[in-house]
């Protein structure tokens, strides 16, 4: 079942076209790794999926809701985690979660806050101001924020940026746990090792389109870098993959 369906997506900023008729599909329970060079339009694409940016042309359907017309329906089913934690430094961890819980009409808020704080192992720091958190702790609290309303879809925009090894490993563990709960996840990252470990499908975005797509079974465990390089170096066009995208020769 398609949870995210994108057809012919075009995004223009003034005279510059970032996305040039992009097609994309993510099915229920998939963990899609969206790879691509800097400036390929990965963040722009995620901002469109999360209704923060309006598509110039094309069809975008998320969780059965059309964008931009049914944006509130999309947002209710969506959790977003980026390299910015989207948290208020002058509020405690718990107050941040309470605030976002109110905005998402979370039921049984105290219990839910306990659950998500437990998930990210921050229960003992819940009453500390977020500005006193380390970068890794803030990012873990950001995960709690992103899942406080139990969304069916998670969009992760380079979530490992700025994290040290320990914090990244902890984020790995939390993301695996979240993915195991049956959510559809789309993650952009430059960290191919982690992408290979976490994702069930890999799409390469370049020149404003998905230029290559493969499932984990199609890419050898240590072969993601080679797959990515072939995709980036390949001329436009190539072998058709099952979902309408192209695989590099």
């Amino acid at each position, binding site marked *: *079942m*398609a*949870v995210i*369906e994108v057809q012919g997506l075009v995004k223009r900023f003034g005279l510059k076209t970032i996305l040039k008729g992009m097609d994309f599909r993510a099915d229920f329970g998939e963990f899609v790794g969206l790879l691509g060079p800097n400036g390929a339009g990965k963040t722009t694409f995620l*901002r469109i999926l*999360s*209704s*923060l*940016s*309006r598509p110039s042309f094309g069809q975008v*359907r998320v*969780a*059965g*809701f059309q964008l931009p017309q049914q944006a*509130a*329906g999309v*947002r*209710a*089913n*969506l959790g*977003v985690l*980026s390299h*910015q*934690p*989207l*948290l*208020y*430094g*002058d*509020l405690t961890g718990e*107050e941040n979660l309470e*605030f*976002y819980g*109110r*905005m*998402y*009409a979370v*039921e049984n808020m105290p219990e839910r806050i306990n659950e998500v704080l437990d998930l990210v192992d921050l229960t003992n720091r819940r009453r500390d*101001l977020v500005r006193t958190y380390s970068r890794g702790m803030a990012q873990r609290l950001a995960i709690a*924020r992103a899942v406080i*309303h139990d969304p*069916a879809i998670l969009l992760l925009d380079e979530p490992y940026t700025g994290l040290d090894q320990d914090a990244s490993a902890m984020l790995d563990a939390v993301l695996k746990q979240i993915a195991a709960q049956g959510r559809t996840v789309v993650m952009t990252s430059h960290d191919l090792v982690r992408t290979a470990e976490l994702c069930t499908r890999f799409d390469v975005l370049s020149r404003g389109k998905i230029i290559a797509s493969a499932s984990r079974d199609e890419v050898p465990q240590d072969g993601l870098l080679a797959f990515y390089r072939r995709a980036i170096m390949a001329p436009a066009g190539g072998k058709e993959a099952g979902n309408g995208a192209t695989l590099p020769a």
Partner: protein
Amino acid sequence: MAQPFRRKHQTSFARAMWAVARKDLSAEWRSREMFSAMLIFSLLVVFIFNFSLDLNPKTQREVTAGMLWVTFTFAGTLGLNRSMAIEKDRSCLDGLLLAPVDRSAIYFGKVIGNLIFMITVEIIVLPLFSIFYNINLFNPGLLAVVALGSVGYVVVGTLLATMTVQTRTRDVLLPILLFPVVLPVVASAVRASTFFLQGQPMDLIWPNINIIIAFDLIYIALAYMVFDFVVEE
């Protein structure tokens, strides 16, 4: 084609608005950055005017309202800039916009927070003005004008601060955009306040109050209509 997901229960407009205002008040209660800046600036203006101008009682009644509104508007600009900068600095504005609520509720939540900060500063500054300028500012009519003028100022200011916060020169750009737009409200508020202090008849004052009310309503309606477009890429 995907089956529609269940549309989850959504936060009402009023609850979302109050959540945003409450969040701003809690954060400010901790940091006191915005409030301190507004208050210290206001007190400095009161002292500077007091020591630099040697006014006779008649002139004082004519210019006090102007000085009062200069204080409020400049202090208000400091607060408005800071209020939106907090949202922008850690991309928290994105976090707000991702919530499945009417985006106007976010705007009006910010307006309520900013209005509470501005009125709190006014409550502290008004008695000081009364003492330093030896003039009774606790006239119910004057207080109503201060409240109505503050509403218009904050409604426009919050909208423009949302626009200018995206720019590098936001501290400079906000007053440049805000003062011309809010001029009808401030000019009418200064006139109405002066007339109250001079004890002029109400039929001279009402037209100014009506202008403030009319502009307040126009600004509120306009902000409600355009906020969605202001925050969208």
